[in-house]
């Protein structure tokens, strides 16, 4: 309460730092030196508005990140103390870890499939539904529904569809396919089924973002191109597609982050199988190692590698795609 009172007293002064001709750190520092009473309200404002949110972020995200980083250099295992510093040994072990390598490759495969197919499918469907009548508005809602549903629910639905005696295979048998594929039980297929399920869920997100982009394309531009003799494809390539650059950026970064952290579908549907880790992902491997194996040191090294990969790939993609936006 005293902070609010401080604030009231301080703000009554007309010499607020904001309209000062030299903004930035230098300006505030000078203002602070000039009158020590400024510090009170400033601190009060910070602790009132910024501190609660920042504190939660520091305690539940930044400190845990630091702990993951620290643990990755130890042999921490709560059931096998004492914890000792092992330097880079965990990272060295990761290099030769066949399971982790497979999880990494699986994660990349899932991410690439999701990023490509949800983007392409989303764009095609958005162009199909880019009409203002009621039918198309209703269809947009249908495509968006899975985005609102939990990945667990989506996984159970698709498990019922794709399992060996599931709905898809009974349909296939009905039309005369004698030996339909084991979509989730065939080690060569299961990973692609998982990637398909994630693509299906993310499709509606891409549709909505592309539709917004399409609605931002001025009609006059299309007409001008048309008058200049541009055909349908030339109009798309030279007018529509460049205008969709921001939508492509958002979708691609969102899909990359979604693909990289794929976990729920694997936990619910395949538990990493069939066989040895054929659908295991990095996220799944980290959680298994930490909570089933209790090898916290080792799982932390995996987590650090995973975070470095996610951060690098999303930042590089973001920069590349944004540069494309600017040059248009």
């Amino acid at each position, binding site marked *: 309460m005293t902070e*609010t009172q401080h604030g*009231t007293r301080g703000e009554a002064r007309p010499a607020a730092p904001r309209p000062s001709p030299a903004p*930035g*750190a230098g300006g*505030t520092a000078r203002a602070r030196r000039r009158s020590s009473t400024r510090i009170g309200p400033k601190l*009060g404002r910070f602790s*009132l*508005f*910024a501190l*609660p*949110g920042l504190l*939660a*972020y520091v*305690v*539940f*995200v930044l*400190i*845990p*990140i630091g*702990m*993951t980083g620290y*643990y990755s250099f130890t042999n921490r295992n709560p059931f096998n103390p004492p914890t000792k510093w092992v330097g880079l040994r965990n990272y060295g072990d990761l290099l030769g870890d066949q399971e982790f390598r497979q999880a990494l490759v699986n994660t990349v495969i899932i991410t690439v499939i999701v990023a490509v197919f949800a983007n392409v499918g989303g764009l095609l*469907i958005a162009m*199909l539904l880019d*009409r203002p009548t009621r039918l198309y508005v209703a*269809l947009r809602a*249908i*495509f968006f529904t899975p985005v*609102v*549903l*939990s990945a*667990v*629910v989506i996984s*159970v*639905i698709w*498990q*019922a*569809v794709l399992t060996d005696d599931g709905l898809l295979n009974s349909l296939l048998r009905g039309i005369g396919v004698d030996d339909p594929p084991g979509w989730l039980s065939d080690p060569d297929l299961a990973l692609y089924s998982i990637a398909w399920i994630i693509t299906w869920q993310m499709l509606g997100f891409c549709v909505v*973002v592309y539709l*917004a*982009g399409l609605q*931002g394309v001025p009609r006059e531009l299309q007409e001008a191109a048309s008058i200049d003799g541009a055909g*349908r494809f030339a109009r798309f390539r030279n007018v529509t597609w460049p205008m969709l650059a*921001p*939508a492509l950026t*958002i979708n691609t970064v969102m899909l990359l*982050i979604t693909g990289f*952290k794929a*976990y729920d579908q694997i*936990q619910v549907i395949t538990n990493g199988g069939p066989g040895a880790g054929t659908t295991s992902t990095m*996220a799944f491997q*980290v*959680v298994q190692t*930490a*909570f089933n194996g209790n090898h916290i040191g080792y*799982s932390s090294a995996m*987590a650090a590698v*995973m*975070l470095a990969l*996610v951060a690098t790939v999303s930042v590089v993609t973001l920069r590349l795609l944004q540069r494309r936006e600017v040059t248009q």
Partner: protein
Amino acid sequence: MDDRTHSWLRPLVAVFVGAAFFLPLYLVVVNVFKPGAEIVPHPAALPLPPTLDNVDAVLSRPDNLFTFGLINSIAVTALSITILTVLSAMLGHYLARSKRVLAKVAMVTLLCGLMIPVPVILEPITGVLKTLGLMTTLQGLILVNVGYYVPFGVLLFMGFVRSVPLELEEAAELDGASKLRVFWQVVFPLLRPASASVLIFLGVWIWNDFLTPLILLGPDSGTTVTVGVYRAIGQHQSDFGAVFAFMFLATLPILVFYLALQKNFVKGLTGGAVKG
């Protein structure tokens, strides 16, 4: 595909693609209201006459997996998004207006948090919660949600605060209003569209979260409905009717919540999309 000569083609393709896409969801909805014995032989048939047996079975489970899960989910989601909206609006406002270097550093640090996958920090989070004595409690889960999702709230609010004229705040200050009062009575009401987006986005995400409540609430104390779906399939894998009914009931509240605020949701989503 010229619009005039093939005007019938677009609606036909659109309806066909939409129907194919919707088929899995259709199968769930019709089979919720069908007797268990009819699901496997006639999965796609309409439930005629419809039965509420599956729904009843979920609601009257002896272990109360659904009812307790529902109460927990509502409590966790409602409290998390209320706290998140208030805290990230205040923080977003502070960061958007502050010109100090420290505020820029805080902003960049928060934005980095948008990329961090839960598994990377989950084990240390359990350590932090144990230290605070909040492991396997709803309060602990709510606090973790607040910390994890605050960057997203701040991102949305910061973009929006810049569209609120500074003069409004200065006028209120000149009239003698405290900083807190300026925020609550002038700024926060103007941020309503951003608040709606934050509420809906985070409401849907937190309701649907799986791994975080699975680990943080643990197996003994009650869990959320989303984790409940996972527990339910473990028990009766083959009883599609019961599993579908559980999923249907677990999804209904968040679907209603989403539909009630849908206009703002898509607006918020695309507002950011177009501006980049």
